């Protein structure tokens, strides 16, 4: 495993952050705290806040629906370790009422009529929830089928069109937390093809980059939407976002304009002024102009198509699955799975972005966010290309000559 070389002293960080109220932190301090401490230490540091909140606040009910997806985000949530999903529910006093992968119940019909009770029948359970409950958090995983021809029949569940189930659940929710690319932007379900119009799978608030094609817009639902995107979404991003909502640290809807970016994403996890590239452990190779042209090596992956300089996420500091690694560290170019237009805006994955001829669309989309954030994240990359002109000139450079060329610095 490669290491980024950034080793921070947890003790001193803990000292620095422990007297701060985490929701009163400014954005930079917050991301420093969450990013540097990691979710586990972060939660440990603020557990007194949470314990206090638990005694004051009623439980938060959670309904979790699955649309058109691959269950990858459910799996990603099960992979969360700090906290794990059980601790997450307990810590934030969440009552998970409905989750198809994790529940005892299933839909049961006898001669077409729902049978048994909500103890065993998920259709009765969901019906009861949607009739009685208001103000729950709706976790939406997966896209919403709107095809063919606006019928929504490409996804039917319990004899009902899923779009109708989603609509009812969305209207009664206090907030919709869309997790993963299928739910936030429709993702692979809306990738360009000759049948994409027929399929018509919609994201909750966006379909790809188009906010006019989100299903909430189509159905006229005004429940606030928080997007936690990525393919899959990182469990820390989801757990900390929902946790902050449950604790009242993020007030819905009042705080959302301040906390979310234009794609409805919490800025702390998708920082407008920070990209995957900046903390990449291969960054030193990039700065020295040393690039891989075939897979399996340890140098910069830019020429293999890495989209890290355009991807606004904290993967490089947070890491995945036990905070161990992330894509470029493991030898793969970043494929930009947090980009709103993924996968169309970031493929071909293994072709340098300028070569692919899509630089215009990408930079418009991504740098727009960056500029809004005050710092041009992609700018670091642009600067490098301007100053050094053509980084590819140094392709195939040896370690020895590289040292010489940059004045022996290493």
């Amino acid at each position, binding site marked *: 495993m490669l290491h980024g070389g950034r080793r921070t002293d947890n003790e001193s960080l803990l000292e620095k952050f422990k007297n701060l109220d985490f929701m009163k932190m400014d954005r930079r301090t917050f991301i420093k705290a969450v990013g540097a401490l990691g979710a586990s230490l972060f939660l440990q540091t603020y557990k007194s806040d949470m314990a206090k909140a638990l005694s004051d606040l009623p439980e938060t009910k959670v309904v979790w629906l699955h649309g058109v997806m*691959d269950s990858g985000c459910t799996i990603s949530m099960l992979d969360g370790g700090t906290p794990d999903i059980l601790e997450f529910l307990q810590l934030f006093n969440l009552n998970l009422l409905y989750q198809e992968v994790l529940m005892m119940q299933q*839909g049961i019909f006898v001669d077409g009529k729902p049978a048994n009770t909500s103890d*065993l029948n998920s259709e009765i359970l969901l019906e009861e929830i949607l009739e009685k409950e208001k103000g729950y958090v709706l976790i939406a995983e997966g896209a919403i089928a709107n095809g063919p021809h606006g019928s929504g029949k490409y996804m039917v569940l319990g004899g009902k069109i899923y779009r109708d189930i989603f609509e009812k659940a969305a209207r009664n929710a206090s907030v919709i937390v869309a997790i993963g690319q299928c739910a936030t932007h429709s993702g692979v379900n809306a990738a360009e093809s000759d049948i994409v119009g027929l399929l018509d799978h919609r994201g909750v608030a966006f379909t790809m980059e188009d906010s006019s094609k989100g299903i909430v817009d189509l159905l006229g639902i005004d429940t606030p939407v928080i997007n936690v995107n990525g393919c899959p979404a990182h469990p820390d991003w989801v757990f900390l976002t929902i946790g902050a909502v449950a604790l009242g640290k993020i007030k819905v809807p009042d705080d959302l304009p301040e906390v979310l970016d234009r794609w409805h994403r919490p800025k702390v996890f998708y920082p407008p002024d920070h990209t995957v590239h900046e903390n990449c452990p291969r960054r030193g190779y990039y700065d020295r102009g040393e690039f891989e042209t075939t897979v*399996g090596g340890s140098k910069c992956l830019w020429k293999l198509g890495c989209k890290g300089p355009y991807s606004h996420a904290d993967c490089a500091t947070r890491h995945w699955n*036990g905070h161990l*690694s992330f894509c470029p560290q493991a030898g*793969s170019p970043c494929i930009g799975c947090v980009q709103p237009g993924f996968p169309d805006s970031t493929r071909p994955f293994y072709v340098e972005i300028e070569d692919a001829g899509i630089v215009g669309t990408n930079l418009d989309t991504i740098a727009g966010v960056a500029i809004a954030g005050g710092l041009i994240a992609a700018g670091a990359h642009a600067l490098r290309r301007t100053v050094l002109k053509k980084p590819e000139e140094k392709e195939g450079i040896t370690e020895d000559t590289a040292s010489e060329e940059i004045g022996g610095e290493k």
Partner: protein
Amino acid sequence: MVEVTVDPLSRIEGHYRINTEVSADGVITDAQSNGLVFRGFERFLQKHDPRDAALLTMRICGVCPVCHSISAANALDDLFGVADQVPKNGLVMRNIHQAMNFIASHAAHIYILWGPDLANPAYRDILTQYGNVGNAVWGELSGRFMPLVNQFNGTHYPAGSSYVAALREFRRLHDGISLVAGKMPHPVLQHVGGVVYSPTVADIQQLIAYISETAKFVESFTLGVPPETWIENTYRASSPEKAVNFVIGHLQELLNKSLTNNDFSHSSGWGDVPLFAAFGSELVGEKLLGLPISLKLDRGGGYKNPDQIGFLSYGVFFKPEKGDGYDPTSPADSRVIPSGYMNGRLQLEKFDHTKISENITHAFYIDQEEDRPPWNGVTEPESNPDEIDYTRGSESRYSWVKAPNYAGIPCEVGPLARLLVMGEPLVTGLAKTFAENGYSPANNYTRMLARMQEILVVIPELLKWLRQDVQAGGKVAVHTELSMAKNSTGMGLWEAPRGALGHWVATGANSMTTLYQAVVPSTWNLAPRNAQGIPSPVEQALIGTKISAAENALGVDYSNPLGIMHTARSYDPCLACAIHTIDKTGKHPDRILKVV
């Protein structure tokens, strides 16, 4: 006749419905397997760089992304003409990556998806009629397998001990995948020509440490004995009879200790496998061991007509001793778990990939040809909303899943099929034992035990690859250029945790994809009927079986159809995989693939 429908069948991947006709005495007389979503998938790979398929096709499934990325990488190796040059180290890394996912996926299925049905209140009502033994066994089942989300009469019960422990192990294995593959789900290790990451010595040691932790879980929760003891006496037994005798003898020993004090806890040696093995089966539990009661899971999920079912494996895990490169057609001797076809009478035949075809007679697709080989697949989805109707019975079109056949026969795929084809002693011995005693050799009990056993088959192989075969820092990929994919075709055969997985790809003169096709395990297991009206494996496994718990022990309860739930879930359904759309080569009849 009563119509009993389970919709949605939860605790699976994706959205799935089972519809049945049930007689007054509680026997299922007809069944339809309905895939409920049309997702659209392979179509968006067309006209794009074929190399992206290794990372995009894994998004078919978040539970088993690893096998899709490896199938795709295998197909790309073939497409680029480099399958015979992939470095051994790259192949071993594919094995390691896949093996961790096998163990994690099986653990998830056994404990998180299938296991909770053992905590169904119907078993409380049955078992507690049998005094202290029944009470104790019910206490174990509900205490071990209760799922995270539950309520009974307004009370929420804590998640089961085995359930929670398995979740932790699942996470640990995914941490291991992430260590060498960036993240999980949707790891980024696989690439045409090999893999993108060569592990360090530290990575390898860390993975060995993870697997050692998993082995501890297997010992204290799953088996109740050290994994080495179990493996030595089953997987490495000198004959199927010896493997079965070891297990029966072990269960007998445990019973001798426990029947006096009714202690069936983990700490008294009753791992989840022994508990299931003894109390799950009528034949093993009641007839061989003399227990007063069992869950009779061997009575469900079997096949009545051996001429209408087969068992198929494409083969998985490259044999490192074969060195660099491999044959993409997956001959039986090149994979650790071999390729092969076994007919319904358990006779083994050589696998021939040209015998695979897919049928759409009962699926919501439009094509003049109803049977096609996957390398010439056509899938035009039904676009008239009124035609999408799941309620019109077995004669109608009723699913988004196609019906694949091998030489015209529906096949079960998955751990049971693989270990039968492999001749794994315990599973082979159990199948024979059941067949000789008038049971279907494949049933819910043997299907679940095969999945448990495959964890024990994979662990020692995985440790061997880590300790002996993988080379830290060694070459993991052969260099490729996009131009090598010009006007080419590729086939990638592999095994997902839940069964045989094939990817087929073709490219045009500009090296861009013209066809992409995946035939996945749940397409095999959960299909609708084929052109001849032969029901799919899951449909055959339902028809003729009882609807309620322990063979309708408490009478017929249509409102708690555990028979359907056990059988349908026993195949580890993955509907996101099964319902994808396939290339519409009908528009390009000139681009029919040549079979390699």
